[in-house]
């Protein structure tokens, strides 16, 4: 077959010029003459090909949308024969058929020759059998009276109608030329020229409207730009509207409830049909034509209809109508590339959107008003149409889908917060205005997408106004995989949006699932499926969720989010990024230490960052980074010995968020609530109360009462009132919020439930209500016993005294936890600590413990803990010198504890060797002291101490000695440790094996 085609083709190529000559010659002739020409002038071998070519040519003219290779494939081949039509020469009334020039929804269209009373060429439309019905002609006759009144160069006249053997037919003025959209593409007309063409169409339709005739079926194939032909009236190159009034006569049945989808399809794509027509409403007026003209303008500008025909035709009737009735097409500019995008974006987008409004009351009231707005645009005057406000979109979205307001708010806010609020990409957009517009478009597209694919696909969601947000999100969540199948980018974005929506609802566990999946899709794809701003928003939200769920990789994700954000902003705001970097670094390295210096440094950096940020445009997404960094810093301090100094960071975050987020946004609520907490504890009650009330009102007006951030704000307000002794006012607030906070968290033993319990305990304690206090204390002790996270314990210390059992238990659990980290790892092999996760955890624990007033036995615990933990990390981990110093400060002056002191000293020695400022003598002295402590330990215990513990400590000190180049001491200690470990644990023990390996390495070196 291949070979055959090859030879046929080369043969054809050889004679291509000859074929072309005959082709053009034939085109000059009438169809009848053509047949004679082919018979008499063309070589017989070329005749079949020429006939095919002429047929193909006729097809490209008659079916404009198929005239280019865009549709060449199946359609071109499949319909070559066409439906059985009338043969040339057939008489239909007084008209002689010449050739078929098109097939439409109503039937076939022919070029025909009128024989009498005079000869002229006309277009003759034979109505498809079965479509007409007996009353069609009667209806058409009534319509003709009105049609006869129309006389406009932009309207093709209807000349006649009747019934012949072939069926009912209509005769119209023959217009030769491409459709208006085809013409625009073929000639490469500019946007301005297209608008002028379109204005001509508006004038023609307006004329008809003045005569009381609606078109009802305006679409590109009904607007032709006629190029020649003596029969046609009007100037060449101007558009002409055909088929006026035909729709009313022949499409009367459209309103019939019995309409079936098969027939509906016959009548063509509803791509240009107004929503009220799609709904089958009887009361159609001029605004319906306004809509169709809007759709026409859309295609004229973008090359495609608002709803793509391919897509519509794949849908069933119900879905097809739903799309027309409910879906918002993307703005025209979104379908264009530069430079056209720039020209269309803004006013022209607005104009088209106004014409395409679903609610006809919001459209242009008339075609002349529509046209006038375009004229204003062309002359540079301000247009009537404006950007659709976010609030209005939201409103429309809600009323359209009858969803609770809160769902819309949640979805929209989650999406815009991610994209508008925290986007850093798109730096190539030339102005902030462009950026804002582009992002609004993207946010809206994402909302639409989410609603389309997920929410609307479940009819119950669209219809039941009483579903809770949670239920809606759950259903959306269940559908997301199906709704986005095969589109990883869409799935990632939808999951990111859902995750953020869940997070704002306090549904942390569900949020985690979706956000993690979104990130996993992103990481697994060969290309970036989430653009940096969205990836950032996803990671940042995930960080918070992980912290609240107390999951160990929170730090790792936080680190990645910070890196990404800094990378994004660094390129534009160098100084600001540097200030934020410094702030973050100071907090990370020093928040857990008792010293004030790092905190002061962070505060200075924050003040500098704020001053630099003051010049930012409110729409600049750098604001988001300022806010997020401040929140991060604030949270770090809040759970540290410096909790009272976190206020300025939360204030800074609040103010930054108020700049770029809409009022009532849950993120503002979060930072305000944290700030209120700081103020309350600092005793600034008036400020705390007024802030808390303001935040609560804003949040409640958006979300109602059953919302996580609302509950959190209530809790903070209640806390502040309780601290002022206004117990009776505080109690209902705290109890209301308690339920929501308990329900909305990842687990019972996590941050918010513990936080909420401790508030109630404090309230009842201060109020003198021991029964209630006891009830919540018991509940909290129970929760505490199930939590392994230092933050939970840190919060418990607000409630329990240091020697109370729940707190003692908690300390023990942390010792166990750190011990596990410390002893489960050899140097350099701590699993998963690339993001500093374990380091950070130990640091956090160290910070909380350091805040504790220490008695002697607890000192032992703390010291062991710190010393052991610092050994867990790879050489060079920056936590080592500082925790060693901290441990030593606890150990100095304590009786006994030689072994711990020895370890701490060896670590200081390492710390000295790592800090460039110290003299070599310092570390030698430190190591000497460590050795002295070890000897004291051996003397004191006389070998009766915990042999395994001692051996491991000796091994660790031996490693430090090796690292410091003291090979002799290293060998003594390691051999000692190895002997004990082998004796106690056997040769297969991994501790023993590790030490043995180190010994061999030491031998190898010497």
């Amino acid at each position: 077959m291949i070979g055959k085609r090859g030879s046929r083709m080369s043969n054809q190529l050889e004679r291509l010029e000859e074929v072309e000559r005959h082709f053009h010659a034939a085109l000059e002739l009438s169809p009848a003459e053509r047949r004679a020409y082919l018979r008499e002038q063309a070589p017989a071998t070329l005749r079949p090909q020429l006939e095919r070519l002429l047929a193909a040519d006729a097809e490209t003219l008659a079916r404009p949308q198929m005239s280019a290779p865009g549709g060449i494939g199946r359609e071109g081949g499949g319909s070559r024969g066409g439906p059985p039509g009338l043969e040339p020469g057939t008489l239909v009334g007084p008209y002689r058929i010449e050739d078929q020039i098109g097939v439409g929804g109503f039937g076939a269209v022919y070029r025909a020759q009128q024989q009498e009373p005079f000869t002229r060429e006309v277009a003759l439309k034979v109505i498809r059998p079965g479509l007409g019905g007996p009353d069609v002609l009667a209806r058409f006759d009534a319509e003709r009276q009105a049609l006869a009144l129309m006389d406009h160069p932009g309207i093709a006249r209807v000349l006649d109608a009747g019934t012949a053997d072939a069926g009912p037919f209509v005769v119209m003025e023959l217009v030769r030329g491409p459709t208006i959209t085809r013409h625009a593409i073929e000639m490469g007309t500019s946007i301005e020229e297209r608008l002028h063409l379109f204005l001509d169409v508006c004038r023609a339709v307006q004329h008809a409207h003045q005569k009381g005739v609606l078109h009802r079926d305006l679409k590109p194939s009904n607007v032709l730009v006629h190029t020649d032909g003596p029969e046609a009236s009007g100037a060449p190159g101007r558009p002409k509207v055909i088929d006026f009034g035909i729709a009313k006569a022949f499409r009367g049945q459209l309103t019939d409830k019995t309409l079936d989808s098969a027939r509906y399809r016959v009548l063509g794509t509803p791509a240009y049909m107004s929503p009220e027509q799609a709904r089958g409403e009887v009361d159609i007026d001029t605004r319906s034509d306004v809509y169709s003209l809007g759709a026409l303008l859309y295609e004229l500008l973008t090359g495609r209809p608002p709803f793509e025909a391919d897509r519509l035709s794949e849908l069933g009737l119900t879905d097809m109508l739903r799309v027309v009735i409910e879906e918002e097409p993307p703005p025209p500019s979104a379908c264009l590339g530069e430079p056209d995008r720039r020209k269309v974006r803004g006013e022209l987008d607005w104009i088209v959107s106004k014409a395409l409004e679903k609610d006809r009351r919001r459209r242009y009231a008339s075609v002349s008003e529509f046209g006038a707005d375009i004229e204003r645009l062309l002359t540079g005057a301000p247009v009537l149409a404006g950007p659709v406000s976010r609030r209005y979109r939201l409103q429309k979205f809600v009323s359209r889908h009858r969803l609770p307001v809160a769902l819309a708010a949640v979805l929209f806010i989650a999406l815009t917060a991610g994209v508008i609020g925290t986007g850093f990409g798109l730096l190539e957009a030339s102005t902030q205005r462009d950026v804002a517009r582009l992002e609004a478009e993207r946010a809206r597209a994402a909302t639409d997408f989410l609603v389309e694919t997920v929410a609307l696909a479940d009819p119950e969601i669209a219809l039941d106004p009483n579903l809770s947000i949670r239920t809606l999100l759950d259903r959306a969540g269940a559908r997301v995989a199906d709704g986005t199948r095969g589109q990883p980018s869409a799935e990632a974005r939808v999951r990111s949006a859902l995750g953020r929506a869940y997070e704002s609802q306090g549904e942390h566990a569900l949020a985690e699932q979706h956000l993690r999946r979104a990130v996993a899709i992103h990481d697994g794809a060969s290309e970036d499926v989430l653009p940096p701003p969205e990836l950032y928003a996803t990671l940042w939200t995930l960080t918070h969720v992980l912290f609240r769920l107390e999951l160990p990789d929170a730090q790792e994700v936080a680190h990645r989010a910070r890196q990404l954000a800094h990378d994004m902003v660094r390129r534009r705001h160098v100084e600001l990024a540097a200030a934020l970097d410094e702030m973050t670094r100071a907090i990370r390295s020093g928040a857990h230490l008792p010293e004030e210096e790092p905190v002061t440094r962070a505060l200075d950096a924050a003040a500098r960052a704020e001053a630099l940020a003051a010049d930012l445009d409110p729409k600049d997404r750098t604001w988001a980074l300022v806010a997020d960094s401040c929140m991060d810093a604030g949270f770090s301090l809040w759970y540290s010995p410096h909790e009272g100094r976190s206020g300025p960071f939360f204030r800074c975050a609040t103010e930054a968020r108020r700049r770029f987020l809409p009022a009532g946004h849950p993120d503002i609520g979060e930072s305000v609530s944290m700030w209120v907490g700081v103020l309350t504890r600092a005793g600034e009650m008036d400020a705390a109360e007024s802030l808390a009330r303001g935040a609560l009102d804003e949040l409640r007006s958006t979300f109602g009462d059953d919302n996580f951030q609302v509950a959190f704000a209530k809790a903070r307000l209640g806390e502040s009132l309780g601290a002022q002794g206004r117990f009776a006012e505080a109690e209902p607030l705290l109890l209301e919020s308690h339920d929501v906070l308990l329900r909305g968290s990842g687990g019972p033993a996590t941050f918010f439930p513990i936080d909420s319990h401790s508030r109630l305990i404090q309230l009842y304690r201060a109020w003198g209500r021991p029964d209630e206090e006891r009830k919540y204390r018991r509940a909290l002790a129970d929760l505490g016993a199930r939590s392994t996270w230092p933050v939970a314990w840190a919060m418990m210390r607000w409630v329990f005294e240091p020697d109370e059992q729940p707190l003692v238990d908690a300390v023990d659990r942390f010792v166990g936890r750190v011990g596990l980290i410390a002893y489960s790892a050899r140097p350099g092999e701590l699993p998963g600590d690339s993001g500093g996760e374990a380091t950070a955890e130990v640091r956090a624990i160290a910070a909380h413990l350091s805040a504790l007033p220490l008695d002697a036995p607890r000192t032992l615990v703390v010291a062991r803990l710190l010393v052991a933990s610092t050994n867990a990390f790879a050489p060079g981990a920056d936590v080592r010198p500082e925790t060693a110093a901290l441990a030593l400060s606890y150990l100095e002056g304590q009786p006994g504890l030689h072994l711990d002191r020895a370890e701490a000293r060896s670590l200081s020695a390492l710390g000295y060797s790592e800090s460039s400022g110290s003299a070599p003598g310092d570390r030698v002295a430190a190591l000497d002291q460590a050795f002295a402590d070890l000897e004291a330990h051996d003397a004191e215990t006389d070998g009766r101490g915990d042999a395994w513990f001692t051996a491991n400590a000796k091994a660790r000190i031996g490693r430090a000695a090796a690292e410091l180049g003291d090979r002799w001491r290293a060998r003594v200690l390691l051999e000692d440790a190895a002997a004990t470990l082998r004796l106690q644990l056997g040769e297969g023990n991994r501790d023993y094996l590790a030490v043995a390996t180190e010994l061999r390495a030491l031998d190898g070196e010497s």
Partner: protein
Amino acid sequence: MVPPSDEVLGPSSARLTEAQLHSADELLPILYAELRALAKRRFRDERPGATLQPTALVHEAWLRLVGEADPGWNSRGHFFGAAAQAMRRILVEKARHKARLRHGGDQRRVELGDQERTAGGVIPSRAEEILAVDQVLERLETRHPRKAKLAELRFFAGLTVPECAAALGVSVGTVERDWRFLKAWLLDQLASPESLHDWQTGEPHVEST
């Protein structure tokens, strides 16, 4: 993750020199890289279902590589000629990849399919069409390079009739006439059942002798 700078700024957009504009050997690789990068970014930026317009990409490349100042029709001709060729390669590569996926039993919907919808139907959209058009043009080139070039400009760079005329250095009337014939001829070529078969087998086309 791709470093953010690549993501946001795209490839370097150094302006073309006069000499580069006139050297097909230099122009083609530059345009190929530029258009691929633009297309890639467009695919990623646009929402699903959005339209990829090779025409728009080519014009965007023009703005980036040449700028607003028009260096004259001659240069435009060279540029768009090379751009059409580059775009053709890119689309053919994509189409091959897609066809392979489909025939490799991969049941996933290929996302590019949605995004290659055409604007105004000048550019072939479906993978099979692109491959079929490419093959037909390949043969046409052997004997009728000007006609093949015209088809390439129309299909793959989406040039308008007047632009084609300028690029080819002939009159608008000539292009209109040539195009009308070419359209019919291509339609006829592509409608033959064999042409649809070839891309499906994915086998190289062997000229029989």
